[in-house]
């Protein structure tokens, strides 16, 4: 029983970066821009979070800085893909390579090493002093509540607001949206920048909360699992969170598995499932129609 609870708790902890990155992907892809750069945005977020948190002593400032860093990469992706209408995949790839380089570059410059311990903790200022909450937060990181809130808010933003309608319109049929006076470029920029913010946040969670340190290449493919969560969740916030939980469950199960099941096969599950839902005849996932296609006004 206790181990079941432990598995559940660690599933949720593992799922946070997947869910946040996946949500980021959802905003971007709903607006029609593929963002495989999530991995890189996450990595930059992880580094910035630790660097700023150590410098200021506040983990929350670190989180904020990570969000801003992610957004900046989002702006770069936007400039390349939306303004210059260049290839979105290559731009995303460039962002991944850039992040892998620049984080280690600054790790050497600022800390003279590639593994940096995080000295600050994410704590909710007043609540954390109440004994009951103290126990709760030591077991459950506060970012879990933040992530849950973001998932719910995202659902309403994407499906129940004018902004969400426009975002989806731009991703499904940009010509029609343009005819109705919606600025395709502006909506796509917004989508990509939100996506960067969420991926940066996912990175901050990894370094500040999950590992308590930054190390070269800490994102280790989690951005791509985020992408897989988004596809498996059919480009919806709740679906993405569900898929994130499922993949997190797989990760949490690893230490409890009998030796005959190699852990590498658990690692493959998200990717295999993603290919499966894309290719299967029943309950097939279909991406937004205008995805990956730059919109050029005639």
């Amino acid at each position, binding site marked *: 029983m206790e181990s079941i609870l432990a598995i559940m708790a660690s599933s949720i902890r593992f799922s946070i970066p997947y869910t946040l990155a996946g949500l980021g992907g959802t905003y971007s892809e709903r607006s029609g821009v593929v963002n495989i750069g999530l991995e890189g945005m996450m990595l930059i977020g992880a580094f910035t979070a630790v660097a700023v948190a150590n410098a200021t002593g506040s983990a929350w400032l670190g989180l904020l800085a990570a969000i801003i860093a992610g957004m900046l990469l989002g702006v770069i992706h936007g400039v*390349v893909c939306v303004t*210059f209408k260049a290839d979105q995949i290559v731009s995303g790839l*460039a962002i991944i*390579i*850039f992040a892998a380089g620049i984080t280690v570059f600054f790790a050497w410059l600022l800390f003279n090493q590639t593994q940096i311990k995080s000295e600050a903790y994410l704590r909710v200022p007043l609540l954390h002093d109440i004994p009951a909450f103290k126990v709760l937060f030591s077991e459950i990181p506060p970012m879990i509540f933040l992530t849950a809130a973001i998932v719910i808010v995202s659902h309403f933003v994407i499906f129940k607001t004018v902004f969400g309608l426009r975002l989806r319109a731009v991703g499904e049929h940009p010509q029609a949206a343009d005819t109705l006076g919606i600025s395709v470029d502006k909506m796509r920029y917004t989508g990509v920048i939100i996506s960067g913010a969420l991926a940066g946040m996912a990175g901050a969670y990894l370094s500040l909360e999950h590992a308590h340190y930054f190390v070269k290449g800490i994102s280790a493919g989690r951005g791509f699992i985020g992408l897989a969560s988004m596809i498996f969740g059919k480009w919806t916030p709740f679906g993405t969170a569900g898929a994130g939980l499922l993949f997190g469950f797989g990760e949490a199960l690893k230490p409890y598995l009998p030796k005959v099941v190699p852990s590498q096969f658990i690692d493959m599950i998200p990717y295999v499932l993603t290919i499966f839902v894309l290719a299967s005849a029943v309950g097939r996932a279909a991406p937004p129609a205008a995805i990956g296609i730059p919109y050029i006004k005639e």
Partner: protein
Amino acid sequence: MTVELKLSRIFQFKTLLGIISPIVAVITAFVVGALVILVFIKSFELTESAFVRLAEKGVPAAVLDNLQVLKGKEYPNKSTFEKDLRAAIGDQNYAQYNRTIKKEALTRENPLTVYDAIFTAALKDRDGWGNVIYRATPLILTGLAVALAFQCGLFNIGGEGQMVMGGFAITWIGFTFVKLPAFLLIPMCILGGAIVGGIWGGIPGYLKARRGVHEVVTTIMLNWIAVAFTQYLTMAYKPKESWIPHTYEIAKSAQLSRLAHYLNPLGIDFPKSNLLNTAVLLSIFAVIFAAYLLRRTKLGYEIRSVGFNPTAAECAGINVAKNTVLAMAISGAMAGLAGVNQVMGYKHRFRYGVFEGMGFDGIGVAFIGRNSPLGVVLAALLFGILDHGGLAIDVSTKVPREIILVLKAVILIFVVISGEITKRVIKRIQKRQEARA
């Protein structure tokens, strides 16, 4: 002016722009890299001349005497310099003079010396360019893989996965059939790598052709599946006594000899330690094969037609599905052969670290080479120079060698942007000429 003449002019203009735009992109990227170095690489050091300048600026002799402790010490970090400075001259003097002293002590790295270090290490002697070619050898293959698929309108970003799957197949054949002589085992290894890489590339091709799944997503997912799968296989075939996660060593008869082995008897002086090996011949052959396939065969023509306009190709009776699968399979086979250099020529064992990132670098190589076989070779050599020369800057300059990754990323960004601008310029010119006609 006749129509034909006009068309040939457009064509020439197009080729010219096609050659110029990646060069401009690369140069721009180097400028950006130089700015990064100028802005961020700084250190603090009080040299003899700094003392003279400080005295001229009116810093009292007593303060300068106290400063002597710091003389000649190099501080890469601003805050440690400030700390020692404060300790040396006291709080009051620090408040008054710290700005002046810091300004005089600040030294920046000259980006040109950094670039000079890269290119000198890469090109100054036979050992240098031998290593550059060695590093370019697998990149030519992964680059060709991307370029070939692109000619069919497919974006194969699964080079990484196809490469490790092929690489593992090569290793497995190499350490399993140890009794076979070299003239049988080497072709078997090469064939095995190509087939397994081809299958791994063919899967996304099939899913695209039959189920309409975009190849970008499937190739990304297959990359990670391949990495996890080969990691499992590596552990399964790991020698028991080894602490390093790598497989058994391949048979001596499957190992390729280094080029020095052939060059030295001919009287050409070439260092024995140089990693350049006969796998480079395979890459050269692959380039010729790709160029021939695309330009001189029916299959190449069909592949390019599908890439140019799938609907028109379908109408002309070309089987789009078949060509999609074939293009992806050939592309995967190319990537799968990267292991010939990495395993048979260099490591003689399988380990993911030997391959890591080369599949992704192949995408950069293909785009810089504008998806033409010859362009791929040139771009692979550029990446080879950066990779090999990058090792030198860690030693001779204060710049971390990760600047190479930053450079590669910036090159990639500028190449896609300049490619897009070129396309628009050509379109505009064509429109104008049409309007005039």
